[in-house]
Structures are given as C-alpha cells and as structure tokens.
C-alpha cells in the first residue's frame, strides 16, 4: 500500500479530530456564559417588547448584547472551522497533484 498516497488524507483526519475536540471545548466554554436562567430569557423578551426600557437596569441590556454576540461568534467559529478544513484539503491536494488533476 502506497503510504504517500494516503498521507494527506490521514493528515486531514488528524486535523478534523484535533479541531473537533478544540471547537467543542471552545463552544462549551462560550455556551456556559450565555446560558442564563429562565427568568433572564423573560427579561430579554420583556426588554424587546415593552417600551419602558429606561426602567430596566443597564446590566440586563449589556448581558443581552453579550449573549447575542457570543451566539454569533460560536456560529462563526464553526463556519471558520469548516472553511479552514475545506481550504486545507484543497491546498494539500492542489500542491501534491497540480491544479489540472483535481480542479474544483
């Protein structure tokens, strides 16, 4: 069996394994802060639906903004991971084989 043929693919599997573990660890550490108790969800809904925003504390507002940013960041992290994975696989085969053999 030609090991050189499979080396880039084995490398990719290793990359996916490492990143899956890292990505999940990062997401979990981001998820923890944006998992507020149920009352907070109601506070956020109230904040968005009632006109008396000045009555509510500034802390709630910033907590809501922080939560939204963290959710977006988690999504971006997953997308970035998929993009890097795709680019890396393309790059590995591109360099190894030449563009004409594996065009995308």
């Amino acid at each position, binding site marked *: *069996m030609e090991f050189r043929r499979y080396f880039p*693919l*084995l490398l990719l*599997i290793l990359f996916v*394994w490492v990143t*899956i*573990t890292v990505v999940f660890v990062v997401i979990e550490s981001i998820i923890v802060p944006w998992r507020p108790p149920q009352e907070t969800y109601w506070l956020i809904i109230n904040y968005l639906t009632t006109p008396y925003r000045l009555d509510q504390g500034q802390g709630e507002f910033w907590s809501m903004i922080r939560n939204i940013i963290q959710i977006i960041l988690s999504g971006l992290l997953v997308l970035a991971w998929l993009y890097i994975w*795709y680019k890396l696989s393309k790059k590995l*085969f591109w360099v190894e084989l030449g563009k004409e053999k*594996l065009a995308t």
Partner: protein
Amino acid sequence: MVGGSVIYLKPIEILYVIFGFFFSFLICNFLVPHVMRKMKDLKITGVDVHKLDKPVIPEMGGLAILISIIVGLSLTAVLFEDNLTRLRLLGFLLTVAASGAVGIIDDLKRLGAYTKTILTVIAALPLLIINFFYPILVSSPRFPFIGRTRLSILYPIYVPVNVAVCSNTVNMLDIMNGVMPGTTIITFGAMLCCSVLLDSKTGIIISAVMLGVMIAYYRFNRYPARVFSGDVGSLTVGAAIGALAIVGELEIVTVIALIPFIMNSFYMLSSMGKLMEYRLVKSPATILLPDGRIAASKDPKAPIPLVRMILARGPLTEPEIVRGFYLLSFFSSFLAILTAILMVWW
C-alpha cells in the same frame, strides 16, 4: 457516567452479548443467499460499473441486514432484564426499522435527494417520541475534557438530524464492493471498544449485534460482490450508527469514527454545491480504464468524493481502493478509541 470497566455487565449478560453476536451472524448468513435469489427472480438487479465485464448483481441485499438486526437484537433484548436497556433498544430498533423502510421505498421507487433526507429525519421520530414519555432515553452528550454538556433542551431536537446525517453519509460511501460493510465493521468494532471503555451497556449490546450482522454480510459484498446492499442496506446501517450514538451515549466517539464518511459527504456537497443523488451526476468522479483499473476523472465539473482524492495520485484497482478506505477507517477508529480513553482520564 464515565468509568473504565464493564461493571454494568454481569457475567450472564456478557454471555447474552456473545449470544447476540453469533445469533445475528447466523441469521444474516442464512438470509443473504435467500434475498439474493429472490432479488434475481424479481429482476431487482444492478450493473457493477467498476468491472470490465459489467456483471449484473442482485440488489437490495441490505434487506437481509435489516431483518437480521430486528430479529437478532429483539431476541437479545428479551434476555436483558432492566427496563432502561430494553427501552433504549426499542428506540434503536424502531428508528433503524423506519430508516430501512425509507431505503426500501428508495430502492423500489427512487426518491429525490431532498425527499430521502427529509424521510430519514422523520425516521428518527420514534426516538424522540419515546424520549418525550421517558426523558431518560436521550441524555446530553459528553465530550473529552468538559464532560457532560448542558444541552438538555436543544439536544433532543438534534437527534433526528444526527440519524439522518449518519444514514445519508454511509449511503454516500457505499460506492464499491465491500466498502460499506468493511468500513462499518471497523466502525462498530471501535464503538464496541468505546462502549466498554465508557461503560455503555446499550452500546456494547448493539455494537456486538451489528458486528455479527456486518461480518456475515461482508462475505457476500466483498470484492467481487455477489450482492449489492441497495439503499435499504446503507440507510439501515447508517441509521444504526446514528441511533447507537444517541442511545449508547457515544456521540463524540461516533463523530470521530465516522470522519472518513463525513469527509466524503462534505467534499461531495462542497464540490457539487447542492444535495444531489450520485446516480444523477452527469460527470462521474471516476473512470474505468481499459486495463480494469479505476482512475480519477479529470473533468472539472465532476464531484470530488473521497475516492477521487485517493485516486488523484494515479489509477488503482478496485480492491486497492477499498483497502485505502479501510486504512482511513482504521485510523479514524483508532482516534475514536483514543478520544474514549481521554474521556475516561478526564
């Protein structure tokens, strides 16, 4: 709970597991020749396009896999006394049976890519319905380093998606003689090891039964294939892996063990830009050379599944390609076992 030994299995239960393995092996071994004959009589056949003489092979051999899982696992489940294990095995069986039914419909009536995907999502509903009445069925997933997560509300919604992804991803890699049973034997072997390491009783039972079925089936599907699995085979086995991950609490190790399958689907989808049935792709990823070897297509419009990447350095014979898939599966299964060891340590 993460332990490190088979403390949940009594000696008699270990015997039950061994019984499940041999019993399902024997059923499948007995059923496949019958299914082959029946399919030949009914003219449900397909052409082996990777061979020069283009032999006609009976399709839907996966029907034997489906029946063997249902009969083998039902009889094994009866032997176990605790209700939680039975409940989990019931959820698993219903999901696998429903996915198998989708496969049968697809083999007989050719469903579109989107319809098939939606139906495989629906096929996982039994797991969700049972979980609605008995919320102990589906637990939050656990990961290395961080342990069990708190995805208590969101996770059950993800269950059908997981089963559908596994079904379709295994279906997409069932492209050459022996690839599907061979790679899934390695996967189920790794899942059995992980179940032992992570004290998953349900995982041990299902992995053993699935190993029995797939080893028996491999004899008939390996190069040169005497039977094709059809969608009923690949969707059933894929759903079995997905459902096993859920009821056996082996989510992350399953993802790791399935990396070659996931990579194949990921590259297929990213190169084609949409969900599409492989048989409808106008430019195939591989071409058969006059000497019988298989080469990567040089057409820029052809999709880029894993097989095209394997072949990018030059043509190979079909058994050589299949061995390449086994190598990739071995490597990812090794990483899955390593992940399980990490989970035990942390």
